């Protein structure tokens, strides 16, 4: 006969208590949160007969809980679910701080698990919800069943213990982080620092101090400072004095001798005290003066020489920590750099940026700007830090203008080399900023922060390619100078500001050049001055060349700005005919220089235009893409169907001085067509074939002439 075996309620309660005790005993032995969570979950499932479970745990940076542990459950069913502390059942336990048991409905976070019943307990970090223990489906021999009140009580007890353990681990992690933070601070500071204990033994030393002391760190730590500095009396006296009198002592320009290495340092020794002002030892700071020169040369990569000298003369200007002051901030950003760089190799991108930055930074330093940051293709420049100056805003605007003007010349070179132009938008703002050393334990930067900086950045974002946008604050500081031209723009709404911001655009030579006005002026001049006997070099020729340059340039994928420049050259290329055919290109160039200067055309681009004019001189000699386009446009008719008409106009014009026989005219044309070649792919494709046909026709005619002549003889 089989014995009757049963699990009594008492045994179950005993197991529950033992589990709780185990959890309490074990929890403090865990050092890592994931291990702790897994252990809690597994034990909770077991003691409460849950078929599965998971622990949700806080994300430090948001209001969302993440899955920190799972047991016997397919968590892929929960992919994409956001466990928001302020929604659903998590909100309920967040507010009530109580364990809940419920049947999982369709609108519940856990519906996708296919579990039916849920028991969820808050995991509290002090009074804040740090997470939740979630158990699913209480098992019985008859299947699954809902959790009951005693299960809630048990899970609450486990969660309460787990919360304490979780807090302890977090606390230890925070202490470790703080320790690492202090160590990082100590290691990252440029001053050599070491500390001694009450026995005079060195117990901490940072990297810089190790370098100054010229010993291995292992040798320094634990050694008495008397041994380390045995041949350096001055520092021994300073440390000893500090130990005896508990006062800070310092000495400048002290020479430390270690073997063959001599280092000049400034020394400061301070007593190290505990919270009750009892001595713990000393802290010694060694400022390596031999680095000053290195520092100076490095610094000059970021600020102008003048600023470096100011800083070195007056160290107070660089006081640590934040200080509020007025400054002007300039941001510039390349427009469309991502798409521009898509067709470039990484090397080309770096080369382009270096080339661009070199030219821009030279301008920044010229106007005493501090290059604060280069972020990708963006530049952040500060004026007035560490010492403000009445000219800060003026300097910032002058920088912006010169940067834009310099870019025009920069792009001219790029266009000539078939590279896409670089265009920047610039924003300038002025106002109160907090300046100082800002950053993390690993890296600190001397920079400025504040609303004024953010606004400058926003103005830069609003500026279109080639635009300089300034705030009213900047304009109010420069308007009295009456040297800057500005245009009022529609106010902009800036994120984080209730009121709209009034802005102005600073105008400069180049950006505002009115090409259409220039075309109209040259055309009017030609209509008025061009002698009527020019049947070929008439206004029609100019209009035709302008039309053809536009067509060819578009096909050759020249950008809008480039097309405007080539059209300008087309209008000007034969203006010299007004003063006679001889050396007419040179005369055109002279005229172009005068009119372009008068119209404030960017000086740096005048050579681009005159180069195109000279390229049309026979024999054509284009040196770059733009010049190839104008040359092809100038003789476009050679491959067109209106060749006969235009060529007869040319004959008429040539016959002003002397009569040309038909035979000679054919010979001239044959020679010209044979020697001519198109330069652009567009013209080669669209005109060359027709031109060759024309040549064959002319050669056929010449043969007929020759035959007729021979038969006459």
């Amino acid at each position, binding site marked *: 006969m089989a014995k009757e075996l049963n699990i009594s309620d008492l045994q179950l309660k005993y197991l529950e208590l033992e589990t709780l005790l185990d959890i309490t005993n074990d929890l403090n032995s865990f050092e890592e949160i994931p291990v702790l969570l897994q252990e809690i979950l597994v034990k909770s499932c077991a*003691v409460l*007969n849950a078929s599965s479970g998971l622990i949700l745990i806080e994300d430090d940076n948001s209001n969302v809980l993440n899955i920190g542990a799972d047991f016997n459950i397919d968590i892929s069913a929960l992919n994409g679910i956001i466990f928001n502390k302020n929604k659903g059942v998590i909100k309920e336990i967040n507010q009530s701080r109580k364990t809940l048991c419920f049947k999982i409905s369709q609108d519940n976070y856990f519906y996708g698990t296919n579990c039916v019943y849920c028991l969820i307990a808050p995991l509290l970090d002090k009074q804040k919800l740090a997470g939740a223990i979630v158990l699913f489906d209480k098992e019985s021999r008859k299947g699954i069943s809902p959790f009951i009140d005693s299960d809630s009580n048990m899970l609450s007890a486990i969660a309460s213990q787990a919360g304490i353990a979780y807090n302890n681990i977090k606390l230890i992690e925070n202490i470790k982080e703080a320790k690492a933070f202090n160590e990082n601070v100590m290691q990252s500071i440029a001053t050599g620092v070491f500390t001694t204990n009450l026995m005079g033994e060195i117990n901490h030393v940072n990297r810089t101090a190790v370098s100054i002391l010229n010993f291995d760190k292992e040798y320094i730590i634990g050694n008495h400072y008397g041994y380390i500095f045995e041949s350096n009396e001055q520092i021994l006296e300073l440390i000893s004095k500090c130990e005896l009198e508990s006062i800070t002592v310092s000495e400048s320009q002290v020479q430390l001798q270690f073997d063959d290495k001599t280092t000049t340092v400034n020394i400061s020794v301070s007593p190290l005290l505990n919270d009750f002002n009892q001595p713990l030892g000393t802290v010694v700071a060694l400022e390596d003066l031999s680095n000053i020169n290195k520092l100076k040369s490095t610094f000059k990569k970021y600020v102008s020489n003048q600023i470096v000298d100011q800083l070195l003369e007056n160290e107070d200007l660089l006081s640590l920590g934040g200080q509020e002051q007025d400054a002007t901030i300039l941001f510039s950003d390349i427009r469309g750099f991502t798409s521009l760089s898509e067709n470039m190799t990484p090397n080309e991108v770096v080369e382009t940026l270096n080339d661009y930055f070199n030219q821009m930074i030279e301008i920044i330093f010229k106007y005493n700007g501090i290059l604060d940051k280069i972020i990708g293709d963006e530049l952040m420049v500060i004026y007035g830090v560490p010492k403000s100056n009445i000219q800060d805003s003026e300097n910032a605007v002058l920088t912006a203008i010169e940067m834009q003007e310099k870019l025009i010349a920069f792009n001219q070179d790029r266009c000539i080399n078939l590279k896409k132009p670089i265009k920047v938008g610039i924003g300038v703002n002025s106002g109160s900023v907090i300046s100082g050393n800002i950053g993390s334990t690993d890296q600190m930067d001397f920079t400025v922060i504040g609303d004024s900086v953010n606004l400058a950045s926003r103005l830069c974002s609003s500026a279109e390619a080639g635009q300089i946008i300034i705030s009213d604050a900047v304009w109010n500081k420069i308007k009295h100078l009456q040297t800057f031209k500005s245009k009022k723009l529609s106010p902009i709404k800036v994120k984080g500001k209730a009121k709209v911001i009034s802005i102005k655009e600073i105008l400069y030579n180049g950006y505002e050049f009115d090409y259409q006005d220039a075309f109209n002026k040259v055309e009017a001049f030609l209509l008025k001055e061009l002698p009527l006997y020019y049947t070929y070099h008439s206004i029609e020729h100019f209009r035709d060349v302008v039309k053809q340059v536009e067509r060819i340039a578009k096909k050759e994928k020249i950008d809008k700005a480039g097309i405007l420049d080539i059209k300008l050259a087309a209008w000007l290329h034969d203006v010299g005919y007004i003063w006679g055919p001889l050396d007419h290109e040179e005369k055109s160039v002279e005229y172009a220089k005068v009119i372009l200067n008068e119209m404030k055309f960017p000086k740096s681009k005048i050579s681009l235009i005159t180069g195109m004019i000279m390229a049309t001189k026979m024999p054509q000699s284009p040196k770059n893409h733009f010049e190839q386009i104008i040359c092809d446009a100038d003789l476009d008719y050679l491959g067109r169907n209106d060749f006969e008409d235009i060529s007869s106009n040319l004959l008429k014009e040539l016959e002003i001085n002397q009569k040309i026989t038909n035979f000679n005219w054919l010979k001239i044309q044959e020679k010209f067509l044979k020697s001519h070649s198109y330069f652009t792919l567009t013209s080669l494709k669209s005109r060359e074939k027709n031109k060759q046909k024309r040549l064959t026709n002319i050669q056929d005619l010449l043969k007929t002439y020759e035959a007729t002549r021979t038969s006459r003889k």
Partner: protein
Amino acid sequence: MSSFITSIKENNSIIIIETNGYLNNTGGEAISEIVYEKIDQGHTKFLINMGNTKIVNSIGVSILIEIIEKLQSVDGKLGYYNLAPIVSKTFTIMGLTKYSTLFESEELAVNEI
């Protein structure tokens, strides 16, 4: 075979079942299914290698008790080895050790059951 059962072997007429994972309702039923089938085939001694079962709940224990009852009716025996301390403690609290035996190793279990 359930994924909870990773192997079944016979050693000296003793059926040795190796488990992996949570010994709950599902795990317990997987064991009982094998044991009952083997009982029908005439086997009476069973060992469970619980090296990979680190957690057990009371339903799992209940099923083991049901198996023990069944084995008692055929004068059979059930034993376990490679138990994690927590599992061993649970078995003890739940009274399982009164009717079945915990062994330290397979060798001891095979010799002594």
